[in-house]
Every structure is written in structure tokens, then in C-alpha cells.
């Protein structure tokens, strides 16, 4: 187990190095000159040269890559070019808002879709199948933008059930007042495709021999589903959840922009519009690390839900 863990962590090093190289090459090779961006429009040549020296831009590229690596290891990304805020402070202050919206969304999504999929799998038949298929196809063909625009207009503006947008300092107020509308919209839109996906996992298991055996020895349909099928279908379900998990930390960009939530996603988008390189570079690298760790965590969970899995 420990050997497995160490080996997996060791394997992350080249991938992470690749991500760092990609980001470095991208911004170095194609991005505008940071010194010119930073100095502003009325800068003299001397000012630009001074900034260049301060950032180490007058050094050879391998030296700059060294600076970049040092920033990653020491978690010291310096300051945002646009606002002068340190990147660490920016993460610390924006992440709570993102988590406040995304966590309920994520939990509710799984809590609703899995039982629903089980129910649909139990009454499987060509009619439910077709209804679900049609609803999914149509639901997915409409842009998510439309749902948010119409939902905000209908629930926030016309019916007045929720505030259209806003945010406060209190987590409780946020959860009870501002979070419900975005969560409702995202869960509603995602429910039918998620149900269809989970249902296909359950149906895969239903065709297996052990299900026939369980039925043959007289188990009730409920016991077959909850004790056998659900446990066996956990692996693809976990994989799916694990793949969606990194999204929590960056937040749904659209949701944060639409509902004026001061989270990480909106901050990254602002950074893109302002060419604020330090913020984008930091987010990209750390999110890559997080994604890899979550993948490792998912693999370890396989072992928990299914003892037959051998990690090697």
C-alpha cells in the first residue's frame, strides 16, 4: 500500500514538470512582454528596463524557469499585476465563496441522481428509456447560458423567490439567500444527463451473472439492488464523481459571473481579461496538482468500496 502510494506520487513529478513547462512556454513564447504590460502606456524605456530587471526578464530563459519553479515550491507567486494583491491572499479570500456555492451543488447532484437512476433502472422499459433519452438530448442541446438567463429572469425577477444576484459576508446568509438559485439551476439542468449516465452503470451490472444468482436464491428485488448492484456500480460512479471534483475548486465560471459571486472562477476570468499572468499561472499549476491528487484519492477509494480491487 505504502509502496503503491509512493510510486504514484513519484509518477506525478514528470507530469507536473510538463504542466510547468507548458505554462512557462505558453506565457514566455506567446504572451506579451510582462514588463511592457506592467509599466503601462506612458512608460519610458528606462522604466521598462527596470521592471525587466526586477522580474528577472533580462536573464536567460533557464534562469527564468528557475525563478518560476522557485515560486511554485515556495508558494510565493508575488503579487497580482492588476491589483497588487498577493496571489496567496487572493486564493485565501476567493476560495470560500466558490466552495459555498459549489459544495451544495455537488452534494445535491449526487444525492439526487444516484437514487433516481436506481429507481429508473428498476422500472426500466422502453418508455422510461425513451423519455429519459429525449429529455436528455433536448436538455443538452440548449446552451447552459439560456437556462441561467431564463432562470434568473423567471425565479429572481418575475416570481421574486430569490435575489437575482448578490453576496454577503455571512456564510449562513449566503447559503440561505444567495446560493439556492444557482444551485437549483445547475442541479435541474444536470439531473437528467447524470441520471442517464448512472442508470447505464446500473444496467451494466444488472446483466451480470451474480444478479441472476441473487435472484435465483430468492432475494427480494430491493436487496438485489441495494446490496449487490449498488456496491458493484460504485466504481464507475466514483470515477465520475472524482472527475467532477476539481471543478469545485475553480467554481463554475459562468455561475460566478452570472450571480456576481466573488469566487475564484470570476477572479481567474478577470485575470484573463487583464492579462494578469501571475494569477493564471498559479491557478493552472495548483489545479493540476489538485487534479492529480484527487485522481489518486479516487483510486484509493476503489479499494475501499470494492475489496477485490488490487492496487499495484
Amino acid at each position, binding site marked *: 500500500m505504502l509502496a503503491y502510494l509512493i510510486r504514484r506520487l513519484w509518477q506525478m513529478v514528470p*507530469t507536473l514538470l*510538463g504542466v510547468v513547462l507548458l505554462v512557462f512556454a505558453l506565457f514566455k513564447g506567446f*504572451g506579451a512582454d510582462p514588463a511592457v504590460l506592467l509599466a503601462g502606456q506612458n512608460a519610458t524605456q528606462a522604466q521598462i528596463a527596470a521592471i525587466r530587471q526586477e522580474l528577472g526578464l533580462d536573464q536567460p530563459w533557464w534562469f527564468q524557469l528557475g525563478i518560476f519553479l522557485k515560486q511554485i515550491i515556495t508558494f510565493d507567486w508575488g503579487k497580482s499585476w492588476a491589483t497588487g494583491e498577493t496571489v496567496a491572499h487572493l486564493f485565501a479570500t476567493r476560495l470560500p465563496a466558490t466552495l459555498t456555492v459549489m459544495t451544495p451543488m455537488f452534494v445535491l447532484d449526487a444525492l439526487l441522481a444516484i437514487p433516481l437512476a436506481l429507481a429508473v433502472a428498476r422500472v426500466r422499459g422502453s418508455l422510461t428509456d425513451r423519455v429519459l433519452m429525449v429529455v436528455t438530448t433536448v436538455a443538452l442541446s440548449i*446552451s447552459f447560458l439560456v437556462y441561467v438567463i431564463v432562470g434568473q*429572469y423567471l425565479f429572481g425577477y418575475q416570481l421574486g423567490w430569490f435575489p437575482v444576484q448578490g453576496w454577503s459576508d455571512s456564510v449562513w446568509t449566503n447559503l440561505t439567500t444567495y446560493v439556492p438559485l444557482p444551485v437549483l439551476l445547475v442541479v435541474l439542468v444536470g439531473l437528467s444527463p447524470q441520471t442517464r449516465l448512472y442508470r*447505464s452503470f446500473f444496467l451494466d451490472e444488472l446483466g451480470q451473472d451474480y444478479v441472476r444468482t441473487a435472484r435465483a436464491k430468492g432475494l427480494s428485488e430491493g436487496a438485489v439492488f441495494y446490496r449487490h448492484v449498488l456496491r458493484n456500480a460504485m466504481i464507475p460512479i466514483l470515477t465520475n464523481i472524482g472527475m467532477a471534483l476539481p471543478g469545485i475548486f475553480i467554481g463554475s465560471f459562468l455561475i460566478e459571473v452570472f450571480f456576481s459571486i466573488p469566487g475564484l472562477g470570476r477572479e481567474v476570468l478577470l485575470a484573463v481579461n487583464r492579462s494578469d499572468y501571475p494569477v*493564471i499561472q498559479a491557478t493552472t499549476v495548483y489545479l493540476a496538482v489538485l487534479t492529480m491528487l484527487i485522481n489518486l484519492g479516487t483510486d484509493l477509494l476503489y479499494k475501499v468500496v470494492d475489496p477485490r480491487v488490487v492496487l499495484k
Partner: protein
Amino acid sequence: MSPPRSDSVWRAAWRRFRRDRVGLVSLGVVLAFLLLIVASASGLVARQWQQEVGVPSAPPHVLGPRPPDAAEGAIQPSGPNVDLTDIDPLAPRYAEWAERAKHYRSADPVRADTLPLGGDRMGRDVLAKAVKGTEISVFVGVLAAVLATGIGTLLGALAGFFGRWVDDVLEWVYNVFTAVPDILLIFAFAAVFGRGLTTVVVILGLVGWTGLYRQVRAEFMKHRSRDYVRAAEAIGASPSARMFQHILPNISHVILVRMSLMVVGFIKSEVILSYLGLGVPIDQVSWGTMLAEAQSELILGHWWQLATATVFMAVFVTAFSLMADAWRDALDPKLKGQA
């Protein structure tokens, strides 16, 4: 007597496809859209989409013209005009300017009260915008899918065919690209490449190739040691000939299906990117920019731009996805029924 020739893959697939009614109808819808796009790209229709042909936010024909608004225009002052000639420094030149202005003719175009599907904030025809927007959105989606398919197929073929260190290196590249969530990768590319149509295509292509790469790589690994490829090698076919003349045609259906799924995905991404201001520039129109404008119009009760863009997009995307599903079932009957 030679044995009866069996149908080619494509002919057999077409025979299966013809039996799929849903697939046929969706193919018809997609072809109709393609005709519309060709007409719009060649300037036959919707060339004048930037003309302000109607009154601002003109309602659709079915609703009829908007009743004259009581609050419209400033309140006219009723008192006598004060003579400012003594203190107005520009007064001596008014006559001269009036004389000069006579040389120019200003036309006051008649603006329609209603338009077929309504007008936007500036009085542009929503129908023309939707047609032009279809052209741009589908264009971006298809081109990006072609680019992503090109990259994915080439790299997948190299990795799967040669294996060894080529495979190791490309797997590393694949791991790097999948380690970063797609949307963030798109943002990082957008930050350095700037804005514009070409940029959107390039970004989506550079980010979207990974799924196809895995599939093509697996297919090439499977095929490279099959008998027909070894036979080709025995008669001296070069590696590139074996890869692209022998193996590629045999897996082209996999690529085609994957590519059509990518088109749908990229069209949706383009809409989101354009809404966020990273996509289509403001002098162009796409479904995404239409939806972005529609957001502020909806509060005023002007729902027609939102409805038109949504319907255009929903019809095209639904038809295209159903067509892709039907293609997959026809080209690869083994996969039938899988999601």
C-alpha cells in the same frame, strides 16, 4: 466465376443508416442548415445583418407594432426662447455653417415598426443575425473539430504504431494536457493568444484533441500487428504508408463519429466563450454574442432575440447529435445501445 463482392464498409453502413428514420430526418435538418450556411457565407442571405432596418427592439410581426410610448422623448420646454446672441461666442458663424451644411444630403431611412422575428437593441433584424450567427458558430465548431481531429489522429497514430519511446513521450504530453482542467487550459491559451475567430478555433483545437488521441492510439495498437498490415510490410510498404493508407481507412469510422461529437461540444464551448467575451469579436455575430445581448433585453421584456438564438441552436445541436448517434450505430453495429 468470381465470388459476389461484399459491400464496402461505407455502403453497408449507408444501408443500415437508411433504415434509421430518426437518423434520416436529422440528416435532412443538418443538410438544410448547411445550405443556409452556404447561402449566408456566399452573401445570398443575411448580408445586411448589420443594417439597422427596424426601430430599436422592434417586436416580431406576430406581436404587431409597439404602442407609442408616453414617456418617450424629453419634455418640451414651454416658455419663450431667451435670445443668447449677444453672449454666444459661436453666434457669428451659425449662418456660415448652415450654408455649408446645405451641400450635404442626409437621408432619414424609414425604419420598420416590426420585423419577422423582431429586432435587437439597435434595430437590427434578429432573423438575419441568427442566420449569420449560425454561419459563424457552426464554422467555428467544425473547424475546431477538424483541427482537434488532425492533432489527435496524427499523435494517436504515431504513439499507437511506433510504441516504445514515441508512445512514452506522447503519453507524457497527454498526461500534461489532461492534468489541467479543460476550461482553465482554454483560459490560459486565451490570455496569451488574444481574441478573435481564428484564436477560438486554435484554442479549442489545441485543448480538445486528447479524447480522440486515446481512441486512435488504442486502434493503432490493435491494428499494427494484424495480418493485413504485416502483409503490407512484407511487400515493402513504408511505415507511413501502412499507417495512413492501410490502417487509417479501417478506423476512419471511429474518427468520424468522434469528430461529429466534438463539433457539438465545440459549438457549445464557442457560445460560452463568446458570452464571457473571449470568443467572437464584437463586429461579428454568433449564437453566443446573441445570447449575451439577450440577457439585458429580457429584463425589458424583449424576449425574441433569446428565443430565436435558442431555437436555432437547439434545433441544430439536437439534429447533429442524433445524426452522430445514427452514424455510430450504422458504422459500428457492435456499439449499438451504448451511451
